[in-house]
């Protein structure tokens, strides 16, 4: 019985130590970071029936990441994407994506994400929940963020997640093209 208690106490102690170590790392990362287009990317992919799919990226976006060292749950992420900068490598597809069929850039120039909560899931990872707004529709979405590096005031995150495009009146082409858009993003930010 005493061995069990000892074992449990050891596990708790290790867990606490781990938490303390992580907390120190997060304290180091605490601060406000402006996302730079240089070194950052927002890529997306949509599967299509029969295999393959459509892949592209947004060339222009901006945002900030504010990491609260004391309470990670109070950290904030704001991203603004300019859909007019979408690129797939095929001009006709780009024009289609910018048209009223998808992004409707003539009437809706920005896509925004404002975080509402950050839930830590590991030493370097968290789930970011927030409000994604596109074409006048706002929905709650979740993304997984992973800290990739922190050096000399420069922070790097990899963020991924899936969004149902039908929620934003962008479901043209379903079911030929999947309703799910898979995002794979890398954000590089400088403290300040």
């Amino acid at each position, binding site marked *: 019985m005493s061995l069990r208690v000892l074992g449990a106490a050891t596990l708790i102690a290790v867990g606490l130590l781990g938490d303390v170590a992580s907390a120190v790392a997060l304290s180091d990362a605490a601060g406000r970071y402006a996302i730079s287009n240089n070194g950052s990317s927002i890529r997306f992919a949509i599967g*299509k*029936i*029969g295999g*393959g799919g459509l892949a592209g990226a947004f060339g222009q976006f901006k945002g900030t990441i504010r990491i609260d060292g004391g309470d990670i749950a109070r950290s904030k992420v704001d991203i603004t994407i300019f859909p007019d900068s979408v690129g797939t490598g*095929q001009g*006709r*597809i780009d024009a*289609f994506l910018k*048209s*009223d*069929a*998808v992004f409707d850039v003539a009437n809706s120039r920005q896509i925004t994400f404002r975080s509402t909560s950050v839930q830590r899931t590991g030493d370097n990872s968290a789930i970011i929940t927030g409000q994604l707004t596109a074409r006048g529709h706002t929905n709650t979405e979740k993304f997984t963020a992973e800290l990739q590096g922190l050096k000399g005031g420069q922070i790097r995150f990899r963020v991924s997640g899936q969004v149902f495009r039908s929620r934003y009146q962008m479901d*043209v*082409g379903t*079911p*030929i093209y999947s309703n799910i858009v898979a995002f794979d993003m890398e954000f590089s930010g400088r403290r300040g």
Partner: protein
Amino acid sequence: MLCNTTTRYGWAAIILHWLIGLIFIGQFLLGWTMVRIASQRTSFELIQLHKSFGFLLLGLVLIRIGWRLGNLSPELPEEVGPVERRAAPAVHLGLYAAQLVVPLSGWVLVSVSVLEIPSVPFNLFVMPHLPLQVSEAAENFWIFGHKWLAYAGIALVVLHILAAFRHHFWLRDVVLVRMISPFFANRSRKPE
């Protein structure tokens, strides 16, 4: 009543004739509209509908050609002159060719398109692309080819309709009405 005789069309030939005729004319109007409509979203959806009906048309035409080859063809009325006796089969042959070639050229077009959009007739199943080289040049060639084959096909349809009206209103024979019902084939339409 299902099969043709030397004096009348059977129900199978009659139903196939009107169904294919309606789809062919509808496809021409749909094709003309879908590339001129301002909304990219509506245009995309109409193009997918056009593809669906194109594959349906192709299937029906193959059945119709098989039916025609395996059945008798009603003879023209005795009063029909030698010129029309030669022209009618030529126009019919041209119509069969158009019904076959126009949807086939559409299938070729979607197969060589650099957009590589899958064909999913009526969202029921994936119709594979033809094994052809995808290229911008091939796509442009087949856009041109499909369009002008459709114009040629609709010109033959107009000629066919005018000839049918001539028989009905001028010659007052049974050529048109026997394509409405097998029961009309023996009606006398001459003035008493």
